[in-house]
């Protein structure tokens, strides 16, 4: 008896089959609370004591919501992130690792720019329409290329989409130089055309409405449509999908067309609603951050509202602290990174059960 006991490992891990909603929310709340506490301490440490932990939150809140303008900017950033997260959700559900949202959005922005530069004579509504179509098609194309190679010859999609980002990046540089305002500046200048009409007093008002609508559409598409069902079957098991008569290749290509197309739409909104210019920084790494946003939300568009807001809030809040301490804003990347570690780590306790050798539960089970 004694011998058998000592051969049992000290800690044992087993998969949870089900978890009560109370516990799963509880674990996440604890993780986020821990993240906030650690982040505050880290901010104090890296600013060499210029921002005390108790000042941190009030400063963060001030940075994100201090004025009406700041609330609008927080909303804008949240939506920019959300849009790309929504675009990624169907692809990830299919277990297709689209790391190329950054490039797909950039190429969409590039397509909008080309329309602005090539057809300056169009009436404003027609120009916006053509820009929209061009951006969606360009983004879809950028997504379909890796998908086609994945579906036909099994090329690793993570690496392929990653590389496509930098091809897009260089193409944007080429376009910026081609239409540069002053020779040698590589600056394409601010566009006076192809601007969305104002809503709520800002150019990006329409973008916000569109993206919120999109959230509902993607939710319904993934949860209730036949195509959404096909996506989740392919994601769970390609063999099962084949067995029940789903054309896997078609689903992969179609889903990436949607994913890339939505990224292209994000690019269009960035050019027409937010930046009114083109450079390699307009997506600003959101294509990568959106991967994290989508994953943390378990690919659920409604939860993505929360996660994209959470990440934007941390980002803007920390940038505010760094600026007020006259330090650089890269501090916000550190804080966002740490918060993500906590939330990623807590998923383990939701998916797995940890049983200690001498714990009550283990004895009960025996």
């Amino acid at each position, binding site marked *: 008896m004694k011998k058998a006991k000592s051969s049992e490992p000290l800690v044992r891990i087993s*998969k949870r089959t089900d978890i009560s909603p109370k516990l799963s929310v509880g674990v996440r709340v604890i993780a986020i609370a821990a993240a906030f506490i650690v982040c505050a301490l880290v901010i104090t440490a890296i600013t060499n004591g210029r921002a005390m932990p108790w000042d941190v939150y009030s400063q963060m809140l001030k940075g994100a919501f201090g004025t009406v303008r700041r609330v609008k900017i927080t909303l804008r950033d949240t939506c920019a992130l959300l849009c790309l997260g929504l675009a990624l959700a169907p692809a990830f559900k299919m277990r297709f690792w689209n790391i190329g949202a950054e490039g797909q959005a950039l190429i969409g922005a590039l397509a909008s720019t080309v329309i602005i530069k090539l057809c300056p004579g169009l009436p404003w509504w027609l120009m916006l329409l053509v820009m929209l179509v061009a951006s969606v098609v360009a983004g879809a194309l950028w997504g379909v290329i890796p998908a086609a190679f994945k579906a036909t010859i099994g090329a690793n999609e993570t690496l392929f989409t990653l590389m496509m980002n930098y091809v897009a990046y260089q193409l944007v540089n080429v376009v910026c130089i081609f239409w540069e305002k002053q020779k*040698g500046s590589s600056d394409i200048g601010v566009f006076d055309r192809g601007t969305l009409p104002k809503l709520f007093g800002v150019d990006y008002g329409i973008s916000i409405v569109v993206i919120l609508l999109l959230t509902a559409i993607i939710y319904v598409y993934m949860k209730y449509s036949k195509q959404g069902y096909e996506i989740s079957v392919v994601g769970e098991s390609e063999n099962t999908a084949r067995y029940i008569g789903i054309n896997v290749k078609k689903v992969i290509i179609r889903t990436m067309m949607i994913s890339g197309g939505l990224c292209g739409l994000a690019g269009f909104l960035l050019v027409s609603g937010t930046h009114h210019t083109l450079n390699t920084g307009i997506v600003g790494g959101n294509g990568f951050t959106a991967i994290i946003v989508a994953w943390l939300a378990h690919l659920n568009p409604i939860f993505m509202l929360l996660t994209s807001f959470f990440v934007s809030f941390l980002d803007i809040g920390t940038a505010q602290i760094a600026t007020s301490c006259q330090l650089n804003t890269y501090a916000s990347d550190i804080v966002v*990174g740490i918060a993500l570690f906590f939330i*990623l780590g807590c998923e383990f306790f939701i998916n797995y059960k940890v049983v200690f050798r001498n714990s009550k539960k283990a004895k009960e089970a025996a």
Partner: protein
Amino acid sequence: MGFDLVYFLQRAVAQALPLLFGSNGEILNEKAGSLNLGIPGIMVSGGVAGIVSATIYENSVANPKGWIGLLISLLSSIACSLLVSLIYCVLTVTLRANQNVTGLAITTFGTGLGNYFGGAIASLLGLSSNTITTTVNAYKTPIIPFYDKLGAVGTIFFSHGFLFYVGVMIAVVSAIILKKTRVGLNLRAVGENPATADAAGINVTKYKYITTCLGGIVAGLGGLYFAIDYSNGLWDTQSFGERGWLAIALVIFVMWKPNLALVGSFLFGALYIADVFVPNLTPLTKEIFKMLPYVVTIIVLIATSFAKKKENQPPQSLGLAYFREER
């Protein structure tokens, strides 16, 4: 102005080194089944750790010695990369978090950490300047003092500091270990099929932890090289660019073989600066030139998937967490 081939090749080697270290580190990671997208972050933080520690040392001692500064920056770079890699290991191996997402979070964290301290160190310590000339000069003294007597070969290969030799040695050693030794065989088994490796009595967790951390340290040295040698000890947040991602591209390009990485990194290094040396390029064609490494990588990726040769494929379990009870 004529085209100086020797100078071009010498600069190509200099450009190749961060890529060599980075891709070597990533190869070690991927061979153990970890697709570590945190390598760019580890490189930046590892590099800046070297600068920051040398800055602190040079400003706290009356007569700083170059080799001590160098040793300190080397050790802190290793410590920093190790620490960041450990975060990745704990999250992906022990807590089985998704590798892609964790890797990207590591890159966000690592580049943030590096760029923040790289930019703010002078302000944080209340210094007027943050040059680390003593350390950099010590580094830049060539190991082989008579290198200029070796002609072109000497200038191209032996005019670099000691990290050049370290990088080449690591590539050769890891190629031999992966290909010829029992440890390498076990490691490859872990990357291809952890369940089988586990059944054969290989400690999957141990192998993953050790190789991922070693890989991280190697990649961090690439950052250190860039910080001390290329940037002369002054960190500019923009200049590191996409070198980390290019290193990951290189892994595919050399088909997960460290010995090929020696040649591949040299080629990528040459391509990276070719736009400066090829005459009569306009700014526009320069940008097209910079696209080449990525396009070439995509072509290699397509070609290897098409050929379906077993030894040129990514490790089978790349990107997947291993849980013993899940078969």
